[in-house]
């Protein structure tokens, strides 16, 4: 299977860099998978779980928003925050969600909509992480 180059960078570090078979990205307008030879695309990503497939093994990385760029050179994901799913501190994550919930009443209009959307994304990440952790 053809591979392509994939870079996952966040402001603080390079979280992943190497040749991969497939990457599934949580796009803002729906999930999509990237294989070698994908058409050039620039897409905004929502907070979610990014799955990297290399030679049959899968790696899950939690990204909290950002942007993905596919060009002929490969895939680049600029993530606001990128953490391997295994390294996520569930308790900490739950606390973040609680704080976000508490801040909701103070917001209005567009900002409120955005916060609710973001909160939903976070909750779905939490749900996915806690269900996979049981396996």
């Amino acid at each position, binding site marked *: 299977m053809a591979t392509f180059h994939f870079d996952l960078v966040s402001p603080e570090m390079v979280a992943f860099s190497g040749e991969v078979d497939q990457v599934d990205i949580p796009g803002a307008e729906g999930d999509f998978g990237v294989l070698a030879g994908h058409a050039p695309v*620039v897409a905004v990503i929502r907070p979610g779980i990014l799955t990297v497939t290399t030679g049959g093994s899968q790696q899950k990385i939690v990204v909290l928003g950002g942007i993905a760029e596919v060009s002929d050179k490969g895939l680049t994901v600029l993530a606001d925050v990128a953490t391997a799913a295994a390294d996520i501190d569930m308790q900490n994550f739950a606390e973040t969600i609680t704080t976000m919930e508490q801040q909701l009443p103070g917001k209005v209009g567009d900002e409120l909509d955005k916060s609710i959307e973001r909160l939903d994304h976070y909750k779905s990440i939490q749900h996915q992480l806690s269900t996979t952790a049981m396996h």
Partner: protein
Amino acid sequence: MASLKDMRVRIASTKATQKITKAMQMVAASKLRRAQTAAEAARPYAEKMDSVISNIAGAAAGPGAPVLLAGTGKDQVHLLLVCTGERGLSGAFNSSIVRLARERAYALMNQGKEVKFFCVGRKGYEQLRRTFDKQIIENVELRSVRQLGFVNAEDIAKKVIARFNNGEFDVCTLFYSRFKSVISQVPTAQQLIPLQVEAPAAGAVATSYEYEPEEDEILSSLLPRNLAVQIFRALLENNASFYGAQMSAMDNATRNAGDMIRKQTLIYNRTRQAMITKELIEIISGAEAI
């Protein structure tokens, strides 16, 4: 002439100073290593961000482009975003950034432009306040921040953008010190608003991307982010530069103290010897007189 006791005290105090500068040098060296790693880790993101933006900007240029990219169309009011350190004792680090900003400010004012300052870091604020007190519109101190995070840069970017949206300035330039090596830090000016996009190399075929969602939507969320990223990078580079400058300044100070101690000890020994000789002469001539 100073007595022997005075000299002893002075030597002891120089030695104490040398111990302090030596310790500061070592602390700076160990902090530098961490700051340097952080600065280097942030580079790929900023570079990728640049290339993505210049790709999209090429497609979105023209009328209706976001103001953060295209500017307000005027360049009457300039905002100088000056990032310096929070502490001194670092050689020319802070003053070289301030000097660059000040020169730019005078050049702009001579052209009849209005100049405003946004200071990040206490040292730069203190130096600029002497000459440009009324023009400093905001001052952010990062003294209480232990570990520089992206949030700090985001806060600054938000303030800048809020002022830009209020129409308080047309052009924003960032001043910081680029970390080249431990002994060389280059004060740098970088224009942030309107964003300077590198023109694609001649002959290169621009990739035509599909956008999801639309270009302008992506661009409008990406541009403020890019501002934060550039500021974040400047802060990290500044941090590394600061420790580099402090390290070499303290190294110099330690060496100077060593030189002083050697000179003072020499004078001390010479004086002591002279006194002994004088006392001997007195004893001998006293004995001869009898």
